[in-house]
């Protein structure tokens, strides 16, 4: 299968290792991977902050870039949620039937990374080896928008050597919320402090998630507090092999 990556703007810029790991996992499973270099951003930050008008050209650009892509894989549940939850409405508001159709056609072809593996490819064992203790933060969009449920956990459960530790109060938001972390920095920090407390309680070596946005937030505090706990996107764990953690 030819899988087209929508890597997302912040993974591209800040977390290139996540993208490399996605490529490694998919290629290892025997799939062809392409990266359409014209891609930029889904428009989530602008849309969610109230700049819907500025998000529109980003949607139109994305629709054009992925027009003829068969399967699109995105290692970020919040960006997939942006596309699924808001593109149909944004498209309808343009009043242009061609845009509405393009959006409708795009939606069923977009998969979040763990969703692609479990639902589309029917795989839970990707042949990974990762001899560390890991706890999963189920990000809000993965839980309440994409309803990924236990899909990420099923993937992690099949990783050899990995010890999975339950995160207490796992369904609580980490307090990132995009521009919320800047506009309401104090409340965001208080929410983060609760999340970090729960992560520390697990005594896991690694905190993972399907979103680097939440992980960047959680890691920001884990790093500042010198806890020694690392954050890794789930793709980086699934790409780890016996010959080396960074595939």
């Amino acid at each position, binding site marked *: 299968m030819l899988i087209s990556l929508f890597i997302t703007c912040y993974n591209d810029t800040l977390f290139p290792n996540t993208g490399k790991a996605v490529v490694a996992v998919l290629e290892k499973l025997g799939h062809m991977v392409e990266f359409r270099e014209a891609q930029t951003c889904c428009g989530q930050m*602008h849309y969610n902050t109230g700049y819907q008008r500025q998000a529109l050209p980003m949607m139109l650009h994305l629709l054009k870039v992925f027009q003829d892509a068969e399967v699109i894989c995105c290692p970020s549940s919040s960006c997939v949620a942006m596309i699924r939850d808001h593109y149909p409405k944004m498209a309808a508001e343009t009043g242009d039937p061609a845009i509405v159709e393009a959006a409708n056609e795009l939606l069923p072809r977009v998969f979040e990374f763990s969703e692609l593996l479990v639902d589309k490819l029917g795989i839970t064992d990707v042949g990974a080896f990762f001899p560390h203790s890991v706890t999963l933060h189920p990000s809000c969009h993965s839980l309440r928008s994409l309803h990924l449920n236990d899909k990420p956990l099923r993937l992690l459960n099949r990783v050899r050597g990995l010890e999975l530790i339950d995160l207490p109060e796992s369904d609580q938001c980490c307090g990132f919320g995009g521009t919320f972390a800047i506009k309401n920095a104090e409340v965001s920090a208080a929410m983060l402090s609760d999340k970090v407390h729960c992560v520390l309680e697990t005594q896991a070596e690694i905190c993972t998630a399907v979103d680097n946005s939440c992980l960047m937030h959680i890691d920001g505090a884990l790093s500042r507090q010198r806890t020694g706990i690392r954050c890794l996107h789930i793709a980086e764990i699934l790409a780890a092999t016996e010959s080396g953690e960074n595939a």
Partner: protein
Amino acid sequence: MSVRVGEAAHAPDFPEAAKKAVADTQLRHNVRHATDVIRGKRAKVVGETPDWQELRESGRQIKDHVLRHLDFYLGQFEEACVRAGGHVHWARDADEANRIAVSILQAHAAREVIKVKTMTSDEIGLNAALAAAGITPYETDLADLIVQLGEDKPSHIVVPALHRNKMEIRRIFLEKMKLKELGYRPEDLANAARQYLREKFLRVKAAISGANFAIAETGSVCVVESEGNGRMCVSLPDLLISLVGIEKIIPAFQDLEIFLQLLPRSATGERMNPYNSIWTGVAPGDGPREFHVILLDNGRTSVLADEESRETLDCIRCGACLNACPVYRQTGGHAYGSVYGGPIGAILTPQLQSMEHSQSLPYASSLCGACYEVCPVKIDIPEILIHLRGKVVSQGDAPLSERLAMQAAAFALADSGRLSAAQKLARIAQWPFERDGVIQHLPGMLSGWTDVRDLPAVPPESFRDWWAKRKKREST
């Protein structure tokens, strides 16, 4: 017309008020404890209801139907209520509703009035209007009483004194009820309130209630509660005034079947409220001899006018979204500057005030979606928050620094060439702040992040750079 939501028009912005709340560790502890208890109870009784999702959908559809035909159902309610011997008054705004209530009480030469279960009276500032007219209001719901005696404000739409713990309540009772001694157990506190309130129930001849539901078909009003103090208020006095927001209408008595399952389970985690009072007009020899309903608009029709957010009026004031909200759980209700706090308050308060005030409230959310998940009438609160944020921006009320940053970001993200250039620029711009791949201090509004968190530096190679190199390598 003067639409007023308590003192929300003059309240400080949410981030400023929340900063204070977050620093109050006792408050956070009280709110956390109380919301944890209610959430646990709710989860249990919702979990045992196999048709919960169908109930939610039914509740939602009934409410939507009413909003689409509100003119019809309000007329039907008025007719039925009058037929049953009640009086119906229409109030455009807070001032008009207060004037009507005061004039009814004055016509009966009432100097005192007992009150129960009316958030709406806090919305319109009724207690202050009564006091100005020389009428003393007594709150009789235990939590409202704690708030009133403590000269405090409600912090939750179902449990208004949720921010207070047992010891704080004991102190308020000792002082304000002028007691010589008082035990420490919850039973002791409840007993003190009982003694204090019984005397009022037996003496005061006029009452004001709110309404959970107003039934168009029969002209009935319904109030649900846990203590029985509401039952006393609506049955003992000679005069009863019910203050009803126009969105409280449901078409038929049978619709209670849905709502009396949704509301108690969502609100207090009970299968049924201990007291469900429903009354219709006046009945000779039983209950009040005179019954008035004040139907209040106070901005509700302007909420109704916006198709994208009118479902805000579906709310049955269960408070489940407050208990579930990770923001509310850190700040409590006062930070919202309105009688309506939490996620529902964040969408309701600014809309009632025609988006002129409380514009920071739509941003008081991380959009985590927990509110929508628990809402018994499926109000898509995150979607409405985003819609209202759009209004703040399109009205030109967003901060200039934010508008410029968003404009710059939109420019950079318009095509991949610009994004690539922006990535290179960021690598250069970050050098004064970066150390070992981590940024610990940033200036201006970004310091909100770096005060307590590190930020990863932009790494030397983006994914797109890596991909381009790889492709080049493969082709050679």
